[in-house]
């Protein structure tokens, strides 16, 4: 699934729901049950699905691009073959009200690493993925998204 070469280029697969809205990709990451599929189900009509399970992420200059993948979770619908610059990484938490909270970079790096898809036994590959995650967190803002599971959450992502 991963090659060392791709990881060294900074690319990885991320356990995340991804949606493109107005030309920007929003990635919602978390373990099973955190609300990835819910976020895609609640997405407005003017969005395009990258995946409700796994997004492909790679650097492009100073920014990062998310690509759709054919992987699907509970939504049962594969993502589309599209891509867009990543607006942010949103780490999901259920709550009573919709709120974005910035995440300190060190914590964000740890959380990102827990959500990167890899089965690597090879130390060089693991090291390359760690470096890729660090570069990503240095370039892309990360937030905790506390959300109430209704469409109003999408007002945070115009």
């Amino acid at each position, binding site marked *: 699934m991963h090659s060392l070469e791709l990881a060294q280029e900074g690319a990885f697969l991320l356990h995340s729901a991804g949606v493109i809205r107005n030309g920007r990709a929003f990635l919602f990451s978390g373990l099973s049950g955190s609300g990835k599929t819910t976020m895609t189900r609640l997405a407005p009509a003017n969005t395009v699905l990258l995946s409700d399970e796994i997004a492909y992420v790679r650097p492009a200059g100073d920014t990062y691009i998310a690509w759709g993948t054919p992987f699907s979770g509970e939504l049962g619908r594969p993502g589309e073959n599209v891509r867009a610059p990543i607006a942010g990484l949103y780490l999901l938490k259920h709550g009573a009200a919709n709120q974005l909270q910035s995440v300190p970079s*060190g914590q964000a790096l740890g959380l990102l690493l827990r959500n990167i898809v890899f089965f690597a036994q090879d130390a060089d590959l*693991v090291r390359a993925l760690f470096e890729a995650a660090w570069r990503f967190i240095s370039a892309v803002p990360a937030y905790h998204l506390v959300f109430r599971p209704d469409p109003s959450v999408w007002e945070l992502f115009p």
Partner: protein
Amino acid sequence: MSSSYVGRSGAVAARAIDGQTVILQLATSALFTLNRVGSRIWELADGRTTVDQIARRIHEEFEVEAPVAALDALEFVERLAAQGVLLLSDAPVNPDRHSGGEANATNPR
């Protein structure tokens, strides 16, 4: 008191970010996030510095009482050494050169 030298294992990947240090153990994918004091100890663990010397620096730089710094530094390095992230040795060690840790680690007590 500990005159053991402290070094970083080469079997981890580590990055400092916003005052914290995140360490990934390559073999197990275990993650360690160090706070400011832990990050400073990590920096000082160059294989040529002893636990006592590290404790003295923590005492000076963070205004921690000397006995507290000594105990905390020792506990910290022993805990990370038990995980194979830091190395403790009776002799100076080359930093970041060791792929494992257990074979080179000795108990400082």
